[in-house]
């Protein structure tokens, strides 16, 4: 068992087999620096719970493929990324920090899928991004690559 501590001082116990999916923690364990609690100063407990849930589910990835439980895992993944943008970005940041490649891939793919075919305005609204480009700058970018802004399939809805 490995103990992880979130930045709001909550401790979680995770099986070593699960936690070594994180490249970072795997290295720590190999180097023998994981004897007591591993503090994770930039992950809050809410996000850490999500990450641990993922790790526990994916612990037997190899086995699952043999026993035909792959669909089950797929379903779990689909359910897993079904969260708000803010939460998703928190998980992406945590996955990046902990270096969990599969989780990173899953979340970024999901983010990209949601952005696909959206209009720029919709993206800004969805992600609550303030546009800090001036109109001229914006026009310049558009003029440089007009082909990227063509096409009728632009979706302006926000969800």
């Amino acid at each position, binding site marked *: 068992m490995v103990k992880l501590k979130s930045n709001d001082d909550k401790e979680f116990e995770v099986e070593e087999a699960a936690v070594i999916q994180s490249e970072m923690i795997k290295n720590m364990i190999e180097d023998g620096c994981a004897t007591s609690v591993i503090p994770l100063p930039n992950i809050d407990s809410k996000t850490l719970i999500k990450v641990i849930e993922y790790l526990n589910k994916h612990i037997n990835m190899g086995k699952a493929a043999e026993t035909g439980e792959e669909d089950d895992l797929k379903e779990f993944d689909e359910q897993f990324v079904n969260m708000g943008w803010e939460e998703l970005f928190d998980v*992406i940041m945590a996955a990046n920090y902990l270096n969990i490649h599969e989780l990173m891939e899953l979340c970024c793919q999901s983010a990209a899928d949601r952005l696909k075919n959206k209009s720029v305005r919709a993206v800004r609204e969805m*992600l609550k991004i303030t546009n800090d*480009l001036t109109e001229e700058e914006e026009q310049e970018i558009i003029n440089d690559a007009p*082909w990227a802004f063509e096409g009728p399939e632009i979706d302006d809805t926000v969800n």
Partner: protein
Amino acid sequence: MRENDSGLNLLKITRKVRWNFPKELGGNCRSETESRLASFAEKSEYKIRLFKVWLHKNKKNSRSAPADILPGCLIQYILGYLSFKEATKMSVVSKTWFQAWLTLPNLEFKVGYPKGKAKIVDNIMEKYRKGKIPI
């Protein structure tokens, strides 16, 4: 003005004038923030002191917009999963996104360029090599 709904109103107003206060206060441009705060308070009907108190109170639990917390390298990661055309469209979302797009690791060159344009491809490859940007 009641305490409770004034907070919500202020949040709305700061969004409206596109002033992202947590980022501002976190930065080291303190005096600039002060002057902007003053001019901002003038514009709104709120007293500057009240506004400052509110800012202080909400400093901790107010977060900047979800995508603003995402560093450029992670935006790039997400853009990498989009088609090149889609990613290019996203480059006008904001400055951070444009920067991320500039060094996007997956390039796409269509064959069949007229001869003269091959030089453009050369230039781009050169830029990536110099910047040691992985493709």
